[in-house]
Structures are given as C-alpha cells and as structure tokens.
C-alpha cells in the first residue's frame, strides 16, 4: 500500500455513506477498500450495521439514531488515515473445473473469434490467478479480475436466456463464476463442481472479496465423481493461505 489516497465521503441517504477511493477497476483501490473494511469491522462502531466492499468504494450502512452521520464520517476519516500499510494474508481458492462440452458451451466459438486454439484458450484461462473483486448481482455471484488480455472478447449481441449455476464465463475483459441460473450475454468456458453459494451449508459462501482464485482442469469422468462428492455435502475447493 505505497500510494495513500484520500477518499471521498458521499451520502447515500441518512442511513448509508459511500467511502469512495476511485472510480475505476484497480487492484490498488480494491486493497484500500478492503483495508478500510477490515478496520471498520475491527473498530465495531456502535450503530454501524453492515459494510459492503465493492471494486472501488466501501458502503457503510448505519443507524443515524445511534451514531450521528457527521460523527460517523469523522470516525471513518480517522480510520482511513491510519490504515495499516502491512500486506494482509491472502486466501487462495483452487476450484476443480471442466472445459469439455457440455460443461463448456462456447469454447469453440471463443477460440475461433480470438484466432486461438481451444487448447490455448484453456491454458490461458486456467493459467491465470484471479482476484475476487466483488460479490454481487446475485448471492455469491463472483466478479474476477486477472483475465489474460488475450481472452478479451465483447459480450454476445443478445443474451442467452438461461445460463446454469457454477459456470465460468468471460466477456469484456472480465471473468465471472455464476451461482444461480440467469440470462447472460457472457461466454461460458467451463463449469466448476464446487458451489461458491449454498444456502444450507456452513459457510454459505466460500470466497470473499480480496481472495485469489485459480481453476484446475479435470476430465469429464473425474468431474462427475467430484460433483457427486459435492452433492453429498463435501467441500472440494482447496483453500490455502498465501502471504
């Protein structure tokens, strides 16, 4: 955390405030957001209900009848100016995935559109280490940064009516893991046997903003046996600490 940035405090009504570090997708901004988030949680400020880290800002939900809005902004300001500059411990998730059809829907199309071989598309997608920037849109829906530039492709002109959960999608230079079925204009490269969101499991969510994520390709028959273990309640994703 070499560069220190003075955040802006933007009102979102009288019950939430946005602490904005910038307006772009940038790992440095994300680090600042996560550091402030950790500091706010550790401070356990009476009246602060919940915080939501995003790519470039932290939303702090609070009860103005417990802490006055200007008092909260002052408190956040002192936390922001005193952020620890030491690097934090990272968690790195490794998810088993399968790039073969029918787990992949679009690998042939993407390879052709980008003038790459299918093997190259898999090697690039699987070779990257991703950063979990944000969970949003739907429960556990995971926005990843770190997609190799060679895999930059525009969204489909019209969305597919339904993409199933646990699909790995790419578009617009971003990567995503779906957690619920939904319409999407993104290209589906693979499927993971793990569930990043499972409402009856403890923990309900595996990955959190700031975590790293990698994908490990397995053959279809192995994928199916892993998926059976997941169905029995096992967590198959590996989680390591990296410093």
């Amino acid at each position, binding site marked *: 955390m070499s560069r220190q940035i003075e955040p802006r405090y*933007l*009102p*979102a*009504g*009288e*019950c*939430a405030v*946005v602490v*904005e570090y910038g*307006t*772009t*997708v940038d790992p440095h901004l994300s680090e600042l957001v996560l550091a402030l988030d950790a500091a706010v949680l550790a401070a356990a400020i009476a009246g602060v*209900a*919940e*915080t*939501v*880290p*995003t*790519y*470039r*800002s*932290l*939303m702090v*939900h609070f009860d*103005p*009848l417990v802490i*006055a*809005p*200007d008092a909260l902004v002052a408190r956040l300001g002192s936390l922001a100016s005193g952020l620890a500059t030491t690097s934090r411990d990272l968690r790195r998730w490794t998810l088993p995935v399968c790039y073969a059809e029918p787990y992949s829907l679009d690998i042939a199309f993407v390879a052709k559109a980008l003038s790459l071989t299918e093997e190259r598309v898999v090697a690039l997608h699987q070779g990257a280490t991703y950063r979990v920037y*944000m*969970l*949003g*849109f*739907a*429960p*556990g*829906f995971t*926005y990843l940064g770190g997609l190799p530039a060679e895999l930059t492709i525009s969204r489909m002109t019209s969305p597919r009516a339904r993409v199933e959960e646990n699909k790995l999608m790419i578009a617009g230079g971003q990567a995503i893991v779906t957690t*619920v079925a939904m319409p999407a204009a993104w290209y589906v490269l693979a499927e993971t046997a793990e569930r990043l*969101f499972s*409402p*009856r499991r403890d923990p*309900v*969510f595996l990955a*959190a*903003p700031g975590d790293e994520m990698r994908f490990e390709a397995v053959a279809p028959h192995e994928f199916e046996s892993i998926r059976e273990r997941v169905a029995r309640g096992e967590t198959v994703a590996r989680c390591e600490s990296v410093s």
Partner: protein
Amino acid sequence: MTTALRIVRAGPGATLQDAGRFGFLRFGVTPAGPMDWAAFRLANRLAGNPEGAAAIEVSIGGLEVEAEGAPLTLAFAGAPYAVQRNGAALPPAGRVVLRPGDRLSVRPGEIGMWFYVAINGHIDVAPTMGSLSTHLRSGLGGLEGRQLAAGDRLAIADAVALDDAAADASWLVPSPEPLRVVMGPQDDYFTLAGIATFLGRAFTITTQMDRMAYRLDGPEVEHAKGFNIVSDGITLGAIQIPGEKRPFVLMADRQPTGGYPKIATIIRADVRRFAQMRPGASVRFAKVTVAEGATELRRLVELIAETAREARPLVRSELSSEFLLGLNLIGGVEDAARPLV
C-alpha cells in the same frame, strides 16, 4: 392440534417478511424485508412482538387467515385496506384475538400497496441465513422461498391472547407531499439542467414496479458523463438514472450493488410513503440534508412507538362508518381522487 395460522386465501404478493436478511450484503444477497417498514414495525408493536419479527406482508391481492388450535392475537397496519374479523369491520390499524375457527380478512382499498399482519408469539419456520424474509427472485426465506398460498399453515409458538385494540395511525395514509431526498452519491454525474429537472418536475409511477424497484416516467434527467459507473453499493430508496434517463428507485428487494449513477436517495421517513404509491401516482422530489433526514427518521420512529402505546381498547364488535370516519382514515378510501391533505 398445533397452534397455527391457516392461510384460507392469499392473493399475489403475500409473503413472510421480517426486518430483512442482513449480514450478507457483501456476498450479493438481497436484504428483502418490508416495503413499508413503518407499518410493519407498528403491526409488530401492536402484536406485542419485537419490532423486527416476521409478519405477513399483504399486497393488493388481499389475504384471509384462520386461527387453529388456540386463540391467536393478530395485529395489523398498513395501507388503508378493509379489515374484517368474521365479516365484521375493524379499524385499519389495531389488534384482535382470533379464537380457533375465527377468520381475519384483508381486502385492498383504493389506495396503497402494502399491509402487514403480525401474530403475537413467533412464526415457527426455520430461517434461511438468519432471516425469514422472502426473496422470490432467489427463492430464499419464507416458506420455501415462495409466496403464501391457500392451505399453508404457519405454526405459531409462544402465542398469548392480548386485548382487542384500535390504533389511530392516520399518518399511515399516503400523502401527496414531495418525497424528500438526500442528493448523491453520484449527483456529480448529472448536468445542472439534469438536477433542475429532477428537483423541479413531476414524475409518474409506471406499472413496472415490484418489491425490487419502481420505475418512473417523466422528463429526461440529463447525465453529464455517461450512465455507466463501476459498481458500488446500493441502499434502500436509491434513485438510479440509467440510460433511458428516467428515475429507477431501488426498494426492499434491491441488489446490494449496481452500476448506474444514483442521483439521490429518498429518506427513510418518506421511502415507506413512496412504497405505498400505485402506478399512475405523481411524485415530486425535494432536497434535504443528511441531518434533516435523520431528524425525520427519529420523528417517525417516535411516532410509531407513540401510536402503539396509545392504542385503546376496541369495545365494539362492529364499527360504524362514523367511528371509522372519526379515525380519519376511511375518507381516503372512499374518495381516492381527492388529494389527501
């Protein structure tokens, strides 16, 4: 027989809601919770429950319920809807005991969208991620993530029979005053002309409205630097202006994050009033400060407590229209076209 509340009839939109599913916003989980938080809290207070306890949210589809096994105390508040016990009219806000076999019915009036029925004790349904709030889109909470339906039975634990009471909650009736907003967080994404349009002109609620968001129609609100932002947090009452340049107001079933600039946020004291408006209603926005928003919130929180405290015994089994007029509520039902002032 288990003590239960049986759903005799449930129109579209009847769901279980508690204060909301909190603690998971950072994972993309919609908070849900009541559309009119003030009416919801009042119903719970009248029922003798904690303010955030699970209750039934009734929409314009109405509801009819029956007590089973033991007497149940049901409290109710919300839009000026017609409430009856065994066919006899009740005031629009209050509480009554249902003996086994007794029925409470809620029929929508001419104005308002949301109504709450709270049951003394607690609804014995397993929470999902700490909450009973139903979010239909993701299928979480309530009964299997769905709307209530005829034949459903809600087991009620720790039920106590309280006295019948009426509450004077005339302040719940939607009023036409401008909706007060705090500007931001992205008001700098709009031109001065855009801000002037937003604060100076009237907008109309369209039929594209549900628990997630209300879409408004009206003059275009001009952006200064495009309509895409890198996603950031969304709170209750946030007013997005997407590419079509008309306000899109995020409500209880909002996503916790989103990628359109938000010109302003409706203050909590007014977002419940906004929620109660129907398609075709005209709305205007008026700018207030964060401190004024907090003052209005405190005022409303105190009003809810005072209204519950001052509930008085309901001595008449059937209420005359004079009595209802005396509560200053039924007038709005009979003459919705006339401004309520």
